């Protein structure tokens, strides 16, 4: 029963979201012209097909009691057949770590959150160092050098060569960025 619920729930969730968006599509505000279809038709068509596909998959999973085995893509079939015959090419053999993944996502979100107030340099160097350490790399000197030199190189390239105005941060952090920019000859 739990397997069945687990297999059905993604489709139920997607179907419910599609239903909500279909409702939102019916509320699209526009000036209708006589005899022409409006901007709501295309999204409604897509959402209708999406809901129908979810319903089909839910019914199929329930009828097959949670077993996998719907139609697969042609390439997938080819890959599976060939790998069964000649051996696979799986490069990654490590055990999964959902905690590490959650930490990685949280760290990246934190970086995006702080990059504007702290500025590119002050946010990026610690982020890179933390990311590399989180990934299990334990040579601290190399980590610090790679993070710092990489950050400065990216700052130089994007601000001086590609002319992208990276965040310089708010006060007092902006002073650090501005000092570095002066040192690198970035205006």
């Amino acid at each position, binding site marked *: 029963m739990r397997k069945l619920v687990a297999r059905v729930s993604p*489709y139920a969730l*997607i179907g419910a979201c599609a239903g909500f968006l279909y409702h939102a599509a019916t509320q699209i505000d526009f*000036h209708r012209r006589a*005899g*022409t*279809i409006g*901007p*709501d*038709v*295309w999204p409604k068509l897509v*959402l209708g*097909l999406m809901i129908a*596909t*979810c319903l089909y*998959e839910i019914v199929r999973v329930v009828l097959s009691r949670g077993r996998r085995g*719907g*139609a*697969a*893509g*042609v*390439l*997938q*079939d*080819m890959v599976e057949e*060939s*790998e069964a015959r*000649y*051996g696979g*090419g799986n*490069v*990654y*053999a*490590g055990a*999964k*770590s*959902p905690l590490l*993944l959650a930490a*990685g*996502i949280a760290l*990246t979100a934190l*970086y*995006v959150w702080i*990059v*504007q107030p702290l500025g590119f340099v002050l946010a*990026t160097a610690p982020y*890179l160092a933390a*990311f*590399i350490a989180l*990934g*299990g*790399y334990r040579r601290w000197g190399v980590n610090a050098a*790679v993070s710092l030199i*990489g950050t400065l190189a*990216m700052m130089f*390239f*994007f601000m001086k*060569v*590609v*002319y*992208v105005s990276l965040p310089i941060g708010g006060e007092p952090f902006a002073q650090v960025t501005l000092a570095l920019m002066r040192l690198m000859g970035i205006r």
Partner: protein
Amino acid sequence: MEVLQHLAAGFLEVFVPANFAALVVGLVLGLLVAVLPGLTLVMGVVLALPFTYTMDVTAAIILLTAMYIAGTYAGAWTSILFHVPGEPIDVPLLWDGYAMARNGDAAKALGWTLVAALVGGLAAATVMVALAQPVARIALTFSTPEYFAIIFFGLASVVSLGGSSLANALISLFAGLLIATVGVDDTYGAHRFTFGVPILSDGIDYLVVMVGAFGLGEVFLRMEQRFTSMPLQSVDKVTTRLPTLREAGAIKGTFARGTLLGIVVGLVPGAGATVASFLSYGIEAQYGARKAQMGSGIPEGIVAPQTAATSSVGGAMIPLITMGIPGSGATAIIMGAFLLHGLQPGPQVFETSSHIVYAVFASVFVGVIGMCLIGYFAARYLVRILELPEVIVSAYVVMCCILGAFAARNNITDVWLIVVFGVVGYLCERWRFPVAPMVLGVILGPLAETNFMTTMISFDNDWTVFLTRPISGTIMVLSLVTLLYPLLRHLRRRTRLAAT
């Protein structure tokens, strides 16, 4: 004759120092990206895009195209030497390429790969140049129903080809089409799914979706696996030994079949080098003269997938340049670079900017030759990038994703969006929803909708027009067959299983 003149001018354009430098940089980056198992060629092209923002349009397109070509080649080295496919394209090379290396002839296996990439790449480039103008002339006669039908075919083929579940691929595609509708509608100026968030009024750029889903999503997936790739075997020295002309001539049929198949698969929107590689190997294993020995380390097993993979690039460039329809992730980025520089690919591009188009065509020839030269002389140095810890490479991939998203509009909201799409990309992989249909849906969605709406307005809301016009009708029927084929295959297999 006129084409040859344009092409000659294109060659001159390629050898302008800035363009030639872009070509060499693109080739080296493409080779490196292909060697690294954590980076796919599409990811590589995505990550390179922001670096081309301030470049001249010709140099920018040449760089990205060079990366695309080289990305179909160098992954073979790691497949052959270490039994680690650099790209999904290179999985078929594990079967005969690695077997040949294990039989003590790694240098010869690398030589066969090089010759296959050279032959496939040059043949496809020739076909591309020969077909581009005639196809563009035909495309000029197309109306919106035909364009819609071609796009529909592309979407149908991407659903039909990939993924472990057809339903999941369809849902992924619909999600992509839906993401493409977010923002202010072009015809009516109506806000769709913006929910009062100002940044959503500008819509969600497909680059944001691509960078997030392909780039960040992949890094998150690797992170969950603790960045623990399989340990590499030690290889004393990497050398390439080319096959003799007689040896190559003995399997000319394999070269021809692989090249032709690669071009045709490249032409189909939605398919690409990976499909070409697997399909070509499959055909050789089924119909080749030495089909019984496939998998034991014979040259046919190397040549078939490699010629097809490299020649698919030439094929994929045709719909992009002549119709403005990108059929794969990499060509979508190249199209993005065209648009960023104010150039719309399509049949008119031969009138307005033929010098750029032919410079790009010429760069494919020069790129294929350059890639093989670099491969011959520098493979031993380039594979050393595998010694870099994966976590450091991944950290920089994340930074390139973030900077790429930020640089496009100088907006931090785009960076938040790529984090969101990174998580979406990860969840898609986890729950077995293929990412490619979603991305292609976002790319082709606006084109599909515009052509659908214009057709409806022009033909009094008569939807049967897609089926009653000869060209669009044929393509629509072909699309339905493409969509139904996996289902029929599945039903046939079930019936066969039930019978046994």
